[in-house]
Structures are given as C-alpha cells and as structure tokens.
C-alpha cells in the first residue's frame, strides 16, 4: 500500500497520509509482581493472588522486583535503546477502582530505556510500571454503560508491565500489525513475556493522525484503545483512518481524544477528550529510592540476550541461503527456528529442510511447538535426504511425515513398512504408464493435439495406482515419450 489515502475516491483532493505510533504494554513473565511478593496470576479464582501491598492497604509499601528491571534492560538492549543510569519510579495519581492506591507506580521523566529502533521503526522509550486490577462490569455488554455494578479482581493488579512507545514512524494498519508481530517475536525470544494478545499479556494502543502527503508536521492525533488481536489492530486503525479522513474531507477537524474500538461493530466511540484528560500530578515515589543500574546488572542482562529474530532471519538468509520468506518464518517463530537448527547437522539440503519445517510441518502442527510432537528433528532431516535422493516422492513423504508427527520413528523404517519407497524400476513404471495411457484415450488425443494440461488425468491414475510412489516428473516424461512427443 502506498500510504496515500483519499485520492482514489476524491480525485483532485489533497492526498492524506496516515501517521501511526504504537504504545504497547507487555506483561513481564517474572515470578512475582512488580512491587510485592505475590505470584503472578494465570486465571486463578478472583482475589486469591493478593497481599496488603497490591491491595493498597494502609501502611503497606512497595519494593521493586529486580527481575523486572533485568527484563527491562534486556528489552532495551534488544531495541537498541540507551539504558538509564538509574531506575527511578514516579507516582501517577488518579482515582479509579482498578487502581487500589489511587496512583500507579510508573516511570516518568527517566524511563529505563530511551530511544532505539526495531526494523526501521524508531523507539521513543520503554518504561516499567504496574498493571491495574481487572474490573468486570456486570451486565450484558461487559462495558460500564448499562451495567448495574462492577466487581474488581486484584489478581492482575501489580503485574509488572513494560510500556514500549514508538515514534510515529508507521504509515499503514498492515505495517502496524506486521511490526507488532516482529516485536512479539523479539520479546518471546527474549523470554520476558508470554506476549499473548488473547490473555492480555500483549496490549496495543495506537496514536493516529493524518497529514497532507509530503508534509512533515503532525496532524491532531487520537489514541485508539482496545484492539486485542492483530486483526482488530488492522481493522481498528483502518476504521480510525477512514473516520479522520471523512472528517477532514468534509471540512471538519480531528479532535484530540481517546477512543474505544468496538470490534463487533467496527465502531469507534470517544472515551475522553483532551479537556477531560487527567492531571496525573507525577512526583517521585518517596517509598522507592532510586536504584543505580550497576555494571553487574548490565552484564547479567547482556549475558542473557539470545540471538534476536531479525538477526536470526538475516543469518538464515545469508549463511544458509534460505529464501527471505522461509528465513523470516523460522526466525519469527523461534520454536520453528530451533527445530530447524536441530535438524541441520543431519542433512545437506538445508533449504529443503527449511521449506519442510515452514510448510508441511506447520500444516500438520498449526501453532503447536514441534518440540512437543513425536517428530525428531533428525528424522525430518533424514526424510528430506530421502526425498532429495529420490528414495521417496514428495507426495509419499508427506504421508510419512504425518506418521512421524503422530507416532515418531525413523522415516526409512516407515517407508519400508508401508511400502512407500519410490518406484526405481523403470520397467515397472513404464508398464503402469502405458496402461494408463491406454485407459485414457481422450486425454491422450488432447495431449497429442497440444493440450498438455490433459496429462493430469493420466498422472492422477498412475499416482493412484502407485500410491504416490512414482515421481510426477518421471511420469510426465514417460507419457510424452509413449505418445511420441518430446518433453
């Protein structure tokens, strides 16, 4: 997409360019909460993962989770950020029932990580804070309107969050979604979060504005919330771009406000305007003394850094000659990349191995981790070797893979046991092809008349008869030969 909207429907009007920045909240996968020793909650009964600190009881005090700082430093390193010399927390004051202390402990003018870049999108900052509790509005819609009462579950309250804010470097909804997937892969690779949008461990808001294409000043932005899947992010951003474009083109003005996206209707509604924005009265939290980031802390974070997806994809392309697409698929789903790399010592045909992992294996497993199947990486590599040596056809090998995934074992043994070895007796195949040509006179006639597509019927019959053990190319060659045509 060009990033230019408006032109196709209005012709002469000024082309408007969307400018998009993202604010991503990531729940960190620490053992305990950000400021207390409660274990993180994963669907426990409400209010069973709480203590005086995360309930904000009088007299309780926060203590910073060092692991969260460690994870924050790793995120900063992964994004190429400048790391702060000290960790300091502020209080962000506002009243809401999901905020037990009446303030959120967050970082303000000294974020843990400043600047950075991921795949051409600049990072503004990364800071640490605590998650709010979960409010449930009792009623049909689940939203506060029309609800008779609200209940609070404090299990989530105090979960460590990293807030990652980008610069407004994104131009399309699709780019936003793609970039977020890269960020997710990166964070998953770091092991700092489950980064699961369904479960809320990855949440994304978008700041969106439009401006005349070719200009550099930013238009008035809106902040769009509640896009809790990659699909909704694209739909939400596109809906907001369309709304702003409609406003501007009809002579109206975009108002700075916070918006809510309803994925059920694609409707966007206002949560609050700029005038209603809170004065958060930030000030340094006097309960938490600033903590210097020591060389030891930096070294520990550096030592814990894995190879990141972007670098891994680049290495797969450069060193192993994989296609960009295969390399990205392997690198962005780290578990696929791990499986692939475990199979590498067992085959010369590394590109083919990559294709099998990202193609046929993913078709079998979906989103599941191949390490949790019965298939061993060496077995897949051996299967790739057998295909390359024409000991088994592609078609038969797909069957074999299915059995290996379900039951494990050695591919050569499976092939032998099920009689799926490629027909390497030229005489045998010549006879089967001759019978098939004779059984399909119409197709033979069409082929002779120049309709090469008609060959499919004959190949299909041979494949059925040989149960996929014959090579398609070889069958084609034999058919044409027997009809007196050259390849």
């Amino acid at each position, binding site marked *: 997409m060009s990033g230019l909207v408006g032109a196709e429907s209005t012709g002469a009007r000024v082309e408007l360019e969307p400018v998009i920045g993202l604010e991503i909240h990531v729940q960190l996968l620490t053992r305990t909460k950000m400021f207390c020793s409660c274990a993180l909650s994963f669907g426990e009964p409400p209010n069973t993962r709480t203590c*005086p600190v995360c*309930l*904000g*009881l*009088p*007299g*309780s*005090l*926060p*203590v*910073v989770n060092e692991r969260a700082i460690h994870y924050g430093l790793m995120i900063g390193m992964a994004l190429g950020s400048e790391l702060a010399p000290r960790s300091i927390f502020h*209080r962000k*004051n506002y*009243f809401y*029932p999901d905020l*037990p*202390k*009446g*303030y959120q402990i967050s970082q303000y003018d000294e974020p843990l990580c400043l600047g950075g870049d991921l795949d051409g999108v600049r990072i503004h900052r990364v800071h640490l804070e605590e998650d709010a509790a979960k409010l449930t509005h009792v009623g049909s819609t689940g939203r506060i309107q029309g609800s008779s009462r609200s209940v*609070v579950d404090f299990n989530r309250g105090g979960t460590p969050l990293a807030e990652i804010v980008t610069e407004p470097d994104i131009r399309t909804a699709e780019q936003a979604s793609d970039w977020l997937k890269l960020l997710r892969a990166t964070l998953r690779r770091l092991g700092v979060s489950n980064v699961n949008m369904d479960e809320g461990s990855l949440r994304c808001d978008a700041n969106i504005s439009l401006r005349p294409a070719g200009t550099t000043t930013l238009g008035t932005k809106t902040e769009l919330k509640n896009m809790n899947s990659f699909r909704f992010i694209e739909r939400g951003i596109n809906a907001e771009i369309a709304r702003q474009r409609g406003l501007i083109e009809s002579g109206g003005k975009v108002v700075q406000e916070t918006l809510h996206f309803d994925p059920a209707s694609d409707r966007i509604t206002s949560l609050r305007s700029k005038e209603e924005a809170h*004065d958060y*009265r*930030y*000030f340094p939290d*006097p*309960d*938490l*003394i600033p903590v210097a980031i020591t060389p030891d802390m930096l070294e520990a974070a550096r030592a814990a850094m894995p190879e990141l997806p972007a670098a891994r994809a680049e290495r797969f392309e450069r060193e192993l000659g994989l296609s960009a697409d295969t390399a990205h698929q392997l690198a962005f789903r780290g578990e696929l990349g791990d499986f692939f790399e475990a199979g590498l010592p067992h085959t010369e045909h590394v590109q083919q191995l990559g294709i099998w992992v990202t193609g046929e294996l993913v078709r079998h497993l979906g989103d599941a981790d191949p390490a949790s199947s019965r298939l061993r990486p060496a077995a897949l590599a051996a299967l790739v070797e057998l295909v390359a040596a024409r000991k088994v056809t592609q078609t038969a090998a797909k069957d074999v893979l299915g059995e290996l995934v379900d039951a494990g074992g050695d591919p050569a043994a499976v092939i032998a046991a099920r009689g799926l070895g490629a027909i390497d007796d030229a005489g045998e195949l010549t006879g089967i092809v001759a019978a098939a040509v004779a059984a399909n006179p119409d197709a033979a006639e069409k082929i002779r008349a120049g309709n090469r597509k008609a060959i499919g019927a004959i190949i299909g019959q041979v494949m059925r008869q040989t149960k996929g053990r014959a090579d398609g190319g070889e069958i084609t060659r034999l058919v044409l030969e027997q009809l007196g045509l050259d390849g």
Partner: protein
Amino acid sequence: MSRQTDELTALSALDASRRLGTGELDPGDLFDAYRERAAADELNAFTWVADAAPPETAAGTPLGGVPLAVKDLFCTKGVPSQAGSRILEGYRPPYTATVVDRLAAAGAPLLGKTNQDEFAMGSSNENSAFGPVLNPWDHSRVPGGSSGGSAAAVAAGLAPWALGTDTGGSIRQPAALCGIVGLKPTYGAVSRYGMIAFASSLDQAGPLTRDVSDAALLFRHMVGDRDCCDSTSVAYPAQVDLPTASRLDGIRLGVPAELAGDGIEPGVLAAFEATLELARSLGASVETCRLPHAPHALSAYYVIAPAECSSNLARFDGVRFGLRAPESTDLISMYTRTRHDGFGGEVKRRIMLGTYALSSGYYDAYYGRAQRVRTKIADDFRAVFGDFDFVVTPTSPTVAFELGAKTGDPLSMYLNDFCTVPMSLAGIPAISIPNGLARPPAGGDELPTGFQIAGPAFSENRILDAAHALERELGFDSTRVRP
C-alpha cells in the same frame, strides 16, 4: 488503684525488664497492672486497650514482657488501627507493622492503641476523630501532637512506654509538652512497613518514654536488619547501647541563632538557657551556629508533606476498606461523599494544598522548589556538624496551650513545629528531654518544657549519651503527674 499496681507501674521500663528477666516480676501481673490503669484512662489517650495479657510467653525475650502502647496509625493485625480518622473507624488490618512485630518478638506485647491527630496531621491532638487527648499536667490543655495519646499515656503512667511517629515533630513536641522523652530516629533507621503513611519521605517511628535509658532500650529493639518490605529502611549500623555518660567533656553544642530566639516563649527560653548553662558545667562548650535556611523549613515542609499526603491518602476511596458513604449513586459520588464524610478539616486542607502543589504547571514552583530548600537545609546541618557535635534548641516554642486555643488558626498551629521540622527535612535524629517547667505567658501552673538535641545521621548512641548526662543533672520527675 491498688498499691501493688502503683508499685509495679512506678518501675521504669528498663527496671521492669530487668526484674522480669530475673523472674522477680511476673509479666502477667505487670501487664494487668498497666491494663487496669489504661482501661481507667481519663485523658482519652487510648482508642483501644487489650482485654487480657497476651497468651504468648515473654520468657526468655530481651524485654521480658514490658507492655507497649502503640500509636493508632501502626497496623496491628485484628486490632483497630484507625489513625485517628473516621474513614478508618473500626478498621482491623490483616497484618502487623514490622516495628510492632519486632517489639512483640523482643518482649514488648501490645497493651493498647493510642489516640492521635488524624493521619498524624496536627500538633495538639485536637484533630482526632475520636476526640482530643488531655494533657495529664493540666486537663484543660493539649498534650501536643500528633502522638499526643502516646505521650499522655506515658506521662500519666498508663503505659511504661509507647511508640509514636514523627513527621515534623510529632514525637518530640508532645514529649516536650507532657514532660517525657521522645526520640525521632534517623530517617530509614526504623521500618515504615505497616505505618499508615502521612508523608513518606519524613515519617519515622520512635519511642516515647519516661527517661533516656528507656528510650535507648526501646529503640534498640526497633532497629536491626534492614526490612526487606521497606525500600527506604537500612540496617542500623551499630548496636544501640544503654547510655552511661554523666559528663559532656569536649562536647561542642551549637545553638542555631535561627531557632532559639524569636517566637519562643520567655519561660521556655529561660529553661533552655538554664540547660545550656548546665551543659557547660558538665564540660560542654556552647556556641552559636548558623542554619541559614532553617527559617524556610516550615514553608518547605508545608509543601512537601501535604504533597505526599495528597497521594498517600488517595487509597481511602471507599472501595476496599474503611468507610464507604452509604447513599452513593455512582463512582464519583462514592468517592466524594466517602472522603467528605471520612476526613476531618485539617486532612482535607492538606490534601487540597498538596494536590495544588503537585498540579501540572505548579510542580516546579512549589514541590520542586521545596525539595531544593530541603537539600539546602540538609547541607546546613552537614556544615554545622563539621564544627559541632550536636545542634540544640528548645523542642517547642511554647508550653502546652489550652484546648481550642489554636484550632481556628492553622498557621499558628503550624508554628509549633518551628524547631523540629528542620531536622525532619534533613532526616537526622533528634531527641527531646524534659528540662524543666515554665509558666505559660498568660499565667497559671508551671508546665514542662523540652530540650532538643539533634545530631548527624545514625548518631543516636551519642545523642542518647548526651541526653543521659543532662537528664541526670536535670533531675526532672516524669512520674509527678500520675493519677
């Protein structure tokens, strides 16, 4: 009161703990003696008194079972902890403050909870939702605040000793007005975990006791390892010793010109001068020193403390604990009605002040500037301690004043902390010891005055020693006003 009760409660906490240690004294008898007195409290010093001695045996503990009165703002599991506020009426927390736990483990079981100014905001104890505390020396007068209940209970012999908190003078000033000893420790020396916060960067727990040795003994068991639940706490760098000094030879006392002149009642000043003379006779040198920024301390304090309290008190929203106004129709009305009904006037005033001071566009002019003044004051003290061992001042510019005398004039009430706030801002330790009696300016019976000794951070041992030497010579009888 029985004769036995009077004999038991006449013992200092140190004496009592020694006799408990030898088995000469039974901890249950001692507890009952104090419980009997506390239950008969006519000063409104207590908001809750234990029904019976705790079942846990204090045998083998260092203190052996000397009961402890605890300011109401310390959380005590299952026991009302209301911080003098309507908004926490009947609130029984699910956990106990670290320092109360430590003292209980050391053999100082909870005797009762003491009345206080609401959320420790006040200098007269008249800001309590549960009524004012009366000064045992004169029931028409205030005991000081905010730890007024603790001070009055100790002075009247209703408790052997008590825990208070000091944010800008809330231990030292009531100790002075009630004729007892009060120590505000170095900021960070005592865990704040479980202390219902007023101003986090200033609040500090400390002992209120009949004499300096008792203060040292209680303080010894308040400090120790760093509390992992309080990031601002530190491991106390030394063993706290019982004071032994009887002389002040070579001790250099600095009298800050800014804190020992204008605004001090003549009787208080006379007692102060007499104590300085006594210090000289014990071998100390006394010279004027300068704390050039001290006159700005109150202004800075009344920005910083309200700013922090405006945030600290946001959690009293009616959602999870304490008062919830019953007729609320929606969220905002629940918040506003609950806080309207639950907070007293002074608390509301400080929340408003603090909210304003932190507001966007005003932060630098108020909070930022106040913090810079605070740094200057700490620097002033640091410079002075290059030349002097201690800074000494009158603790309170006045003796105990009459109930209602200042309630209509917040600024004159704030001036009570004129001599104590600079040390709070600097985070340094300071003690107040009774140093005599003075007649109020408008006449009437003589009332106690306090002498404040402040030293560098973690100099409590030296402060206690100096205070002990003076105390011996002053000969003040802190048991004089017992009922």
